[in-house]
């Protein structure tokens, strides 16, 4: 009797679950981006706020990382379905046989750069030698290390915090910066562009594409349609964001305030424009062409990772990247 009751209960639960699953057309998923809300993630936020995900039948939730958790690891740990992340880190994970997939490479151009003040006497990378250079760790350090090797220089490198105060007060001569973020913060601290010397890694054959969308292999295998819908809605969100910048900034600023981000609209505007530059690099303005991971970019990054012994083998491009946006 007890067994029958248990069986009936199990049956009911299965029935109910099936009913719920069948009756709900939208699949509830989460996307985690690398940092707190800012224009760097405008496309996702806009897609969410404008209801593009819902329209595409995806019940998406955006999660913002606080920097302590790694979104890619969160995906691998199956806590979330999608995340954004840098190509370099994803290649390293893939080379560790982690079943992570790039399903959309949005940013085509690296925004990472080194900045120095002209007044520090720096004109070329050769002038770095007896200077103090600050660098972030992790992914952010790969390009600078490669750059120093290429330039055959061995400057004193110290760890860099999230603030640029050391650079602003002159304690640090050369600082790492994201073109869309810290570089503009320097400008917003009263230093003019013509007072600065900039070194874009893209100019030194070190174009490491940054934000791409990642998921587990199984996610794409099990729910290819949902993945495509999600990617399409995301690209739609980005296209909308670039076409309606002020509206987008309204939305982004709302998020920034909610998350107590110390930022301002003009900074977010700069960021949005800079992200647009990075996204349309090589592929152009047409959103139909967005989301592609260029093979040569992939190998540029992978080979440098290999060179720096951060990976032992280069994962196959076709294993690593699935062009979901352009699948029929």
């Amino acid at each position: 009797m007890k067994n029958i009751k248990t069986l009936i209960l199990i049956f009911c639960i299965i029935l109910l679950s099936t009913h719920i699953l069948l009756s709900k057309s939208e699949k509830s998923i989460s996307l985690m981006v690398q940092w707190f809300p800012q224009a760097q993630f405008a496309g996702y936020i806009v897609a969410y706020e404008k209801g593009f995900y819902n329209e595409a039948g995806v019940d998406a939730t955006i999660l913002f990382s606080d920097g302590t958790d790694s979104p890619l690891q969160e995906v691998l740990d199956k806590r979330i379905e999608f995340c954004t992340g840098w190509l370099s880190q994803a290649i390293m994970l893939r080379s560790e046989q982690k079943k992570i997939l790039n399903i959309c490479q949005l940013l085509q151009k690296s925004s990472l750069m080194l900045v120095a003040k002209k007044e520090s006497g720096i004109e070329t990378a050769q002038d770095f030698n007896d200077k103090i250079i600050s660098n972030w760790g992790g992914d952010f350090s790969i390009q600078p290390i490669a750059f120093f090797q290429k330039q055959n220089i061995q400057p004193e490198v110290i760890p860099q915090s999230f603030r640029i105060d050391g650079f602003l007060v002159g304690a640090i001569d050369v600082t790492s910066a994201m073109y869309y973020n810290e570089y503009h913060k320097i400008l917003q601290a009263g230093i003019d562009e013509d007072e600065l010397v900039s070194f874009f890694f893209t100019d030194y054959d070190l174009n490491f594409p940054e934000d791409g969308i990642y998921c587990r292999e199984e996610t794409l295998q099990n729910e290819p349609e949902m993945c495509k819908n999600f990617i399409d809605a995301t690209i739609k969100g980005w296209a909308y964001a670039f076409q309606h910048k002020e509206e987008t900034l309204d939305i982004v600023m709302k998020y920034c305030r909610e998350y107590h981000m110390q930022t301002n609209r003009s900074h977010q505007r700069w960021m949005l424009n800079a992200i647009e530059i990075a996204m349309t690099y090589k592929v152009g303005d047409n959103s139909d062409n967005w989301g592609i991971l260029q093979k040569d970019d992939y190998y540029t990054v992978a080979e440098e990772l290999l060179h720096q012994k951060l990976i032992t083998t280069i994962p196959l491009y076709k294993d690593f990247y699935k062009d979901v946006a352009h699948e029929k």
Partner: protein
Amino acid sequence: MKNEKVKVKRPLVRKLLLWIGLPLLMVYIIVILFTYFWSGDNALKQMKEYLFELTSHHACMLDGKFIKVSRASMGVADAIDEFAMPTQKELNALMKKKLSENRDIYGMAIAFDPYVYNKMKLFSPYVYHSGDEILDVDLALSYDYTLQDWFMIPKLLGTSYWGEPYFDEGGANILMATYSQPMYKDEKFIGVSTADISLDDLEREMNNIRIMAGHTFIITRTGTFIYHPIKEYMMNESIFSLAEEDNQPELREIGKKMIAGEQGITTFRDVTTGKKSWLVYSPIPDCDWSFAAVIPDKEIMKTVNSMVLKQIIIMVIGLFIILLVILWAAIGITNPIKRLLGFANKISKGDLDEKITGIRGHDEIHELVKAFNKMTFDLKHYISDLTAATKAKESVESELRIARQIQESLLPRIFPPFPDTEEFDLYARNIPAKEVAGDFFDFFMLDDDHIAIIIADVSGKGISAGLFMAVTRTLMKTVCVQGIPPADAMEKANIVLCQDNDACMFTTLFLAIYDIRTGHMHWTNAGHDEPIIISEDGSFKILKTFKDIALGINEFHKYHEGEAQLEIGNKMVLYTDGVIEATSPENELYGEERFIKILTENADKSLVEIMNVVTEDLDGFQKDNQFDDITILLLKREK
């Protein structure tokens, strides 16, 4: 008596106002315009200085706050430098003491460079306020502080450093800023001493600072607002982000000056209001921040304009007072003049009884009034004297008129005197110079054939002469009796006239007794002008006589007698010296020659016509300038 209103076409008051007031007004207008522009500039300058000082003052006050905190941290650093490495307990005690001394300090830390303190990798004792308590903790247990800006930057810079403010999110979510002082031992960096200042009070303090109707703000060395009345700006916006958002490159330039620690005042478009405003900024040197005040241009101009307006109002009041003074002075001058004018008008109408009184002072007007009063007084007396004199004269004149009438009545007035007589014609005219003449003529028949003809000129004029003439005439009429020789008659009359002649009057006299049938005459002449005989053909001759002395001088004088024959048609002209001594306005004498000429030229005319011609000629010659009596007597023998 009420003063008559005198209407003046262009009153002196108006003139004075026009001559003094108008130029003054123009000068004032120029001065006011000058004041407006110059004073506006000046007021603006003053205003700038005022704002400058006020802003500096507030910046200094804020600086003092930061200095106190940084000094406390420096004190700790110095203590560590001085002594051998203190124990953790000693360090905590030292910092707790500083903390309790200064409520502005939220927390203090000593952060040692790795392996400096007792060969520990990291060691950083931290004391902080927690409610009323002061707690302590080792930061090294929480995180690697060597990567923190507050540790790294002063280490790299080798100087103290005020970090950018941050929200202490772990704590009370308050705005904090950290001061870091690098510590050295034997010139080797050993760590930093820090002090956290809570900026929680800053907002309250800043809210209390009022600079006119503007607002204030504070930016850090990166231009970030750590105080702004718009709360959203705080920690989010920088002066440069506003410049960018508002597309105001000028504001960026201002911001650069501000973070460079400069002091200044400038105008810009206030981002919050979009209106032209003034920005006054002053550095807070200890932390390299900048304090600024934003005042709407309207407010400044309102104050400046009210300052200028005050000056202008004072000037306008001054002008008004001056105009009033001019008016008062003008009235003060013109009122007595007006009174004088009214007074003069009255005088002109003969009212001399009034005297001007009530005009005070010792000026020219007063002197004029005095002169006027004296003049009126003199005039009054003069007029009364004159009136008396005129009255007297008028009575004399009226008497003279009567005397003249009497005298005229004495002279024969009807011509021709003997209309029935055909043998001769006689015509005479007396033109007296004065009311009473001294001349006279007379003729009267002594019998049927003889007529006595007399012409005389009494010495002197007027009543006395008239009376003497009357006496002489009566006397002559009495002494000339039928058949008496003229000389006898003359002597008799002379004797009478000489007697009792106290006035010593005398008379010239010509007496002829003419026989109307024969034309023969006997004559005697007592000093008179000799008669002229005019022929019908125009020739003439003067009857030569013995010129005896005039009557009334010598009673014993024997008068001579002569004879003469007047032919038919001839005329005898008797005259007094008034004729030939008649004087023109040019002082020319009429003369005997001219007299004879006019007589001879008109010899063919009747006696009346001749008389008219002669008297007209005399009138024309003298032109109302007759000094002496004129008497002419014409006798013509008709057959």
